[in-house]
């Protein structure tokens, strides 16, 4: 077995071991924990870049390493790294738990990495649960007044229910095709998708990922978990976790690509309901993280729109948008966790006068928010347009129209953030000092958001090469 094929996973497994040793230490030193984590995370990004062009199969062909999986592994490592960079003020997680926090963050990353490579149903399930269980622990780690526990339980319950649905669906598929390998299932699905058992099996199997992506009707956890979990944990759930979910959905939905009118109709419906519901509910939110939670539900609708085209263009759009979403959502969360240094939940009005309190943060915030809203020149705009384009190519006129109208609705609540940070008087809110690494990170994010929004060609080509192996 070529070690390089399994390189990223092995690296993160090693990192998890190191963190495990750190948890055993008697005296607590959050500062060293952070530095070690930062170094390991940076190494993780480097390793995934090195392994980007690996090709091969492992473990009796249950595990496929191709450009598609490696891109997402890179995205996950990047997400992990970014989340660690903003973990220097974990004031709301008790100092003695910091090592555990890094440990479970690492294990959930491993789970997701395995998820994007898994091409066998049971492997997919096990990988999914590995990533989920770590998150179930991470969510209630926050020192809180009960809200963390509520969030943790809600996350666990809805996660467990969706896992149940998923197993049920997988059993249908297995029962009908006598195989758990996607490569074997694929040719048999063409016939199967026309029967109820095929559609139900496929839809239920997607439930686990709909949950992760917070697609309607598995979205109930999002607002409470976003609000209840520590800011950094929320950041991870909102960025890396989504990217992994999109990756697996792309693999699984491809199963229905041969045919399946009713299957796509269901996806169209889920997409429309998700974006409309998310956007309309986000309007009335006062808490910044809750608002972002509803916005993530709306974005899940856009992802589904790219996925349901089941054509190369749509998949390219979805991959591009998943990477873009990771960057832009992270940018917003970075600002959030910098402004709320003590780890409190940030109300939107608490962003008041940010342009005065920290000009650079307000610049990143406005760009991140505009990117989420799909305003050019940003990766968010380009990604959204690619998705709309591919959906229109498949003749989903109404879906695109509704998506575009949703783009207007969402602008209202995104503009409220801009309004607070750019116009409202700061009052007695203190200035937000930021260290120079954070400053560099801010500039990097700004450059990425605009740069890849205006010059998307390289990313699109990469995504194109990647999705070839899925379809």
């Amino acid at each position, binding site marked *: 077995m070529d070690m390089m094929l399994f390189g990223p996973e092995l690296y993160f497994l090693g990192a998890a071991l190191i963190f495990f040793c750190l948890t055993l230490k008697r005296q607590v030193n959050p500062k060293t924990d952070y530095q070690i984590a930062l170094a390991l995370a940076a190494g993780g990004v480097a390793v995934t870049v090195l392994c980007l062009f690996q090709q091969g199969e492992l473990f009796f062909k249950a595990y496929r390493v191709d450009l598609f999986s490696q891109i997402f592994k890179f995205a996950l490592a990047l997400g992990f790294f970014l989340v660690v960079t903003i973990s220097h003020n974990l004031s709301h997680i008790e100092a003695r738990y910091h090592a555990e926090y890094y440990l479970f963050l690492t294990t959930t990353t491993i789970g997701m990495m395995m998820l994007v490579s898994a091409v066998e149903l049971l492997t997919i399930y096990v990988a999914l649960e590995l990533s989920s269980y770590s998150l179930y622990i991470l969510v209630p780690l926050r020192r809180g007044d009960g809200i963390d526990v509520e969030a943790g339980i809600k996350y666990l319950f809805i996660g467990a229910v969706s896992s149940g649905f998923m197993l049920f669906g997988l059993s249908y598929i297995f029962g009908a095709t006598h195989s758990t390998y996607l490569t074997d299932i694929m040719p048999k699905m063409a016939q199967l998708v026309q029967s109820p058992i095929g559609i139900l099996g496929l839809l239920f199997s997607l439930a686990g990922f709909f949950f992760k992506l917070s697609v309607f009707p598995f979205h109930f956890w999002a607002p409470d978990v976003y609000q209840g979990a520590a800011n950094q944990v929320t950041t991870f759930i909102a960025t890396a976790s989504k990217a992994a979910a999109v990756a697996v959905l792309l693999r699984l939905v491809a199963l229905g690509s041969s045919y399946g009118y009713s299957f796509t109709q269901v996806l169209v419906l889920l997409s429309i309901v998700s974006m409309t519901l998310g956007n309309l509910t986000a309007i009335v939110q006062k808490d910044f993280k809750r608002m972002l939670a509803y916005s993530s539900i709306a974005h899940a609708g856009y992802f589904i729109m790219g996925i349901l085209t089941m054509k190369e263009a749509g998949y390219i759009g979805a991959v591009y948008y998943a990477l873009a979403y990771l960057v832009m959502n992270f940018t917003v969360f970075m600002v959030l966790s910098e402004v709320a240094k003590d780890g409190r939940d940030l109300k939107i009005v608490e962003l008041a006068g940010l342009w005065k309190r920290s000009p650079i943060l307000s610049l990143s915030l406005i760009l991140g928010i505009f990117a989420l809203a799909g305003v050019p020149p940003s990766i968010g705009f380009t990604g959204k347009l690619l998705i709309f384009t591919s959906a229109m190519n498949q003749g989903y*006129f109404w879906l695109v129209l509704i998506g575009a109208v949703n783009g207007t609705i969402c602008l209202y609540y995104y503009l409220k953030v801009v309004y607070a940070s750019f116009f409202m008087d700061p009052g007695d809110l203190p200035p937000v000092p930021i260290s120079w690494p954070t400053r560099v990170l801010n500039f990097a994010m700004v450059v990425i958001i605009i740069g890849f929004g205006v010059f998307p060609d390289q990313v699109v080509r990469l995504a194109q090469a990647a999705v070839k192996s899925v379809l």
Partner: protein
Amino acid sequence: MVEHPASFPYLSCMLLSPVVGLCILLFMKEEWDFLIKCVSLVSAGLSLALAIFTFVAYDKSLGGLQFVEKYEWVQTFGITYFVGVEGLNAPLLLLTGIVIFTGVLTMWELDHRVKEYFIFMLALVTGVFGVFMTYDMFFFFLFYEIAVVPMYILILVWGSTRKEYAAMKLTLYLMAGSGLIIPGILLLYSTSGIFTFNMVMLHGVKFSPWIQKVAFVLMFFGFGVLAAVWPFHTWSPVGHVAAPTAVSMLHAGVLMKLGSFAILRVAMYLCPEGFVYWKQLMALLATTGIVYGVFVGLAQTDLKYVIGYSSVSHMGIVCLGLATGTVDGLNGSLFQMFAHGIMTALFFSAVGFIYDRTHTREIHELGGFSRIMPVASAFFITAALCGAGVPGMASFWAELLVFIATVKVYPIQGLLAIAALVVGALFALRVVQTSFFNEPNPKFVHFEDVSPFLGLPRMILIGTLIFFGFFPQVMVSLIKTAVVPFLQGM
């Protein structure tokens, strides 16, 4: 369309000049007021110089698309960076150059968050230049949005009079318009069968009639929101009133033209059959806008509202000209876009100056303002005369052309529009009389008149109006080189 490649990337330089200025501003300190304004002025001036150059250097005998630059951008999706100049957009590039240059000069006295102001303003201008010069639908839409969104912040932070309401209303209206534009554009893209955003190539595709009808109406209303087509105009007076002076100038002067230009460039160009099907509606809405704008304007007492509603009616004239679908109509319409742009910029610039001193725009409070500030008042009066369509001003010729064309094609609408404009002219004179030639308000007697430096931008605008008033042929002959082939191609 014949394409002549550029020997030097003039258009990209015109586009990048504000971007470079913006990037320099990002790294400057908030306190360096004067330097910030200088950088903005230089980058705006460079764009203006290039705009004048392309306007003058455009070879009319050669025709077609000149100064073309074309690069593959995203091959997978058929996106090209494709810019060029022809008779349709050369006047509008010039207009943008003039308005931004004078706009920076007009805001020379700004002292509140100067750096950010110019950053957003330059971003907006980049978008405007981009829309006017690009021939790729992806970039067209990209620049269109870039031009629209910074408005929110510009009005919110530097505006006046109900600015929060106005900013939100304006942004949501315009973004709702974008919500219609995207499906329209993508419908054409995906049904063309060649999967390209290149408009010149799409023009060669014969779309089926129903697609043309659907796409046209989506884009007409989508872009029409920005062109203040009645009944989607309500954001415009409110927005213009609330915006700071230079932003009003840019917005009424240039941005609204993006809407009408886009209707011409994208909707009419790509969906000729859709245009034929919907043109009656276009003419009707345009006429309603003209009449409505004039009569609602009658009831206003705030100078900026007066101008805001007059813009609605003048943009109605632009739309009416487009709806005729004749050479004269399109000539007049494009000329009117240019003339109205300069005229409104002058209007807002003059009012802005008065408002900065007196903090009122109420017609009755100003009283005999021409005795206190004769020069500042003269600017406003000149603009008002131009708005009333006095011969010797650029808009006289523009309106004349449109009305000649309209009376031929839509006699009833044409006569109604002319009647409304006569009423409007009477009213404009009354406004001028009440606010400038009554008894002066003693509160304002101590104010000094415009200094020569601050008067400079207004003088440039007046000079342009008069120049094209006396030599309309310079403009019309240029526009004609594009309009004739444009209509033949439809």
